[in-house]
């Protein structure tokens, strides 16, 4: 159990690292949202599942799973709201053509 938990935590941390790299590297807000809504959600999810496996079946792990479910619903919704708000304000996504024009 503990070994499986450690492996899951490792994978989760890797995904979190990818999120941060994506957040820094990707060209515009909308593409960054991709990195956040996908890798960050699964990253924190795997870390929490890993921690729950370390704990075993107790009330604490039940609460961890509850928090996990909440994050799985809340994270995409938050990303969705932010992009929606950005589009309403009139920020248009970056496209390949834009980068060609800049050069």
């Amino acid at each position, binding site marked *: 159990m503990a070994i499986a938990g450690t492996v899951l935590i490792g994978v989760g941390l890797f995904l979190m690292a990818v999120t941060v790299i994506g957040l820094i590297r990707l060209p515009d807000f909308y593409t960054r949202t991709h990195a956040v809504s996908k890798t960050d959600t699964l990253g924190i999810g795997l870390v929490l599942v890993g921690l729950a496996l370390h704990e075993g079946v107790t009330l604490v792990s039940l609460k961890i799973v509850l928090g996990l479910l909440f994050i799985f619903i809340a994270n*995409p919704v938050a990303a969705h709201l932010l992009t929606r708000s950005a589009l309403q304000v009139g920020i248009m996504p970056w496209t390949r053509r834009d980068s060609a024009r800049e050069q």
Partner: protein
Amino acid sequence: MLHAQLETVRIALRMRWHDSNARGWHRPVFRWLAYIVLLAGLWVALSGRLDGLFLAMGIISATAVLSVTEAIFRPGDPVGFERPPARFSWLAGTVFRLVIYFPLLLRDIAVANVHVVHLVLNPRMPISPSLVEFESPLRTEASNAVLANSITLTPGTVTVDMSANRFIVHCISETMRQEIQEGVLLKRVAHVFGEKVEVPKLRNLTSAEEVKW
């Protein structure tokens, strides 16, 4: 202050208990029961005690919270959507199919993550984002909400806006645009909710004028 709150509760109660159009599981009683069981279950899970006193406190506070929030989150007939069928068999079947749907969604989430990892860590960053819109053929509010969240969680696509039946989706690469075009996810969600759909056409959005709603 307290008086105003009591008034809200009273109005909410009156409006909700006498919804004469409701049939089957649409009857307010069932929704109240479902919410109370859910909230009281959450209470038990968070407090970690199961004795009679705590359970009673949980049920009482769940009912209190519900009576206040019901007035705010009143599920009326939302514009542009149909009510789902009122049959209990439909509800049971949908819950069952949703339970089967989740493992499939989890697999898609895993694929999505591998995809994003590939895009972000590739030094050339092979992305080619585009913004598309389509009219969702799904008819109920719940199925459209599930579709929107599924699109966000699966490979390369994020739902930007969903108002009435209009979906605006941001795709990170050309392959992902294809996937939306084929409507794999749409068909699956339609199957879960027992609806029959045709895959809609996509339109590209390139300027702020086209986005206007």
